[in-house]
């Protein structure tokens, strides 16, 4: 199976193409950026697809990060992924940024709790914890940094993600290993997770973890008789 993976949800604009699940990418490009994903992504997809024989028509599946992350960023990736799915009539699967970050830890560490923390600003992190076996300990959630630390108990734990340093700084006396504080997941892991995901369940829908921040207003209304 040939899969194209796309990630624009965090601090990178990235895509890669992998054959047969666990291999190395046959085309790959990742640009670190905080903003500008909307302008950068489609030309980047053009370059990545041009490097494989058959281009887009050779794809069997698309995987895309669905967040949590930048709302606008993830919608850019999801819109593009769904458009490719429509144009090529192939399945599109969603992969969370947290699980893509954790996948890199699972491959490396098998005796600690594994935690992914993404900086969500205002002293908060998007947070997920799994056991070395892969079992979920804390499902994806939005937390204050100190509440995230509390959920780690006594550890030991390995941390990854842009919020890892903030969590480690708050945790005193816990055995924490900050594995990586990179601004975005490794796109190769997005592809690998996407190739084993079930298209019926891993839908390419945004995972916001936060409401749209709007309040109903009717205080302006005049009384009626």
């Amino acid at each position, binding site marked *: 199976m040939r899969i194209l993976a796309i990630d624009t949800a965090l601090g990178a604009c990235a895509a890669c193409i992998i054959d047969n699940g666990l291999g190395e990418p046959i085309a790959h490009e990742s640009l670190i950026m905080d903003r500008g994903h*909307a*302008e950068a*992504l*489609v*030309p980047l*997809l*053009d370059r990545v697809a041009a490097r494989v024989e058959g281009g*887009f028509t050779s794809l069997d599946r698309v995987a895309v990060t669905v967040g949590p992350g930048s*709302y*606008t960023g993830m*919608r*850019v990736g*999801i*819109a*593009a992924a*769904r*458009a*490719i*799915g*429509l*144009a*090529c009539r192939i399945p599109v699967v969603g992969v969370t940024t947290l699980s893509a970050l954790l996948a890199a830890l699972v491959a490396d560490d098998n005796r600690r709790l594994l935690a992914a923390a993404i900086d969500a600003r205002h002293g908060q992190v998007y947070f997920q914890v799994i056991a070395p076996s892969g079992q979920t300990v804390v499902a994806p959630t939005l937390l204050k940094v100190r509440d995230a630390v509390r959920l780690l108990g006594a550890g030991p734990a390995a941390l990854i993600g842009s919020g890892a340093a903030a969590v480690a700084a708050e945790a005193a006396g816990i055995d924490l290993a900050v594995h990586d504080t990179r601004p975005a997941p490794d796109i190769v892991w997005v592809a690998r997770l996407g190739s084993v995901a079930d298209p019926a369940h891993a839908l390419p*829908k*945004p995972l*916001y973890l936060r409401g*749209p*921040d*709007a*309040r*109903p*207003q*009717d205080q*302006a*209304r*005049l*009384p*009626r*008789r």
Partner: protein
Amino acid sequence: MRVLGLETTCDETAAAVVRLSEDGHGEILANEVLSQIAEHAAYGGVVPEIAARAHVEALDHLIDRALAQARLTLDDLDGIAAAAGPGLIGGVIVGLTTAKTLALVARKPLLAVNHLEGHALTARLTDAIGFPYLLLLVSGGHTQLIAVKGVGDYVRLGTTIDDAIGEAFDKVAKLLGLPYPGGPEVERAAEGGDPDRFALPRPMLGRPDANFSLAGLKTALRLEAERIAPLTDADVADLCASFQAAVVDVVVDRTRVGLRLFREAAGHPTAVVVAGGVAANQTMRRALQRLAAEAGLRLLAPPLPLCGDNGAIIAWAGIERLRLGLVDDMTVPARARWPLDAGRDEAGEKA
């Protein structure tokens, strides 16, 4: 020539396919529109983040439906058009990214259309009129008088210096406790009301420029309403009728001045065209009809489904641009603000 058009600049998610026949006539093969009114109703107005969230969930399904309705595949198309602004940027990015990606994968020309240009050229789709003509664009986000001289050749003659007309209707509806969206509700309530009961101002009336102002009128209506609150149904009907009458007077006066400025800027118009969601208001249409007749001109108002936001007007603008070779590349940006005649100063924030 067949073009797919995508529209996501405000609270309608839309996809349409339009065909240009050999005799130069436009034909709408599919026009799928999903309104988000229910999602925004509780807030009394469009919430940008809610709109963006809805667009990304719906757009690909609408495109699929539009293509099926038109009995076409992407390969059969000659171009992919999307409204690239002006509008709520989160939604615009969804539509434009989708169009760019489809264009890339299907190897079709991309047409990044100005949403206002979609409205400006609609009368050529429906009535095949020639240039130049006077356009009155009235919606929830826009209130402009434009000399349409050619594709890509627009002179803005007037705009609002504060609220858009549709926005003023919505705010009045909210004040009076009418449901959202307020324009049709105010019009309905006004039917049984007395338009002369409240002496509301007609802002800008008689001014030599063709600009609009709605804020003072809206405030005057609020003061009158507060003075007599609590309101009976008859009070609401009279307030709505008085407000609508004032707006229509202003629109007619501003359009008359617009016609005078038009002649200086572009010569003799082929027609007066009214477009945008507020063009659905029947009292306004009748008043504009009289004005046009006075000036010896035709009034053209697109059928109601083409007055509001939809993909067909974007697809048609795409056809107009494609046949002139005005194609865009993959790096074209989404724009929150994008005046039709980019060279001129901005008179108002909401323009």
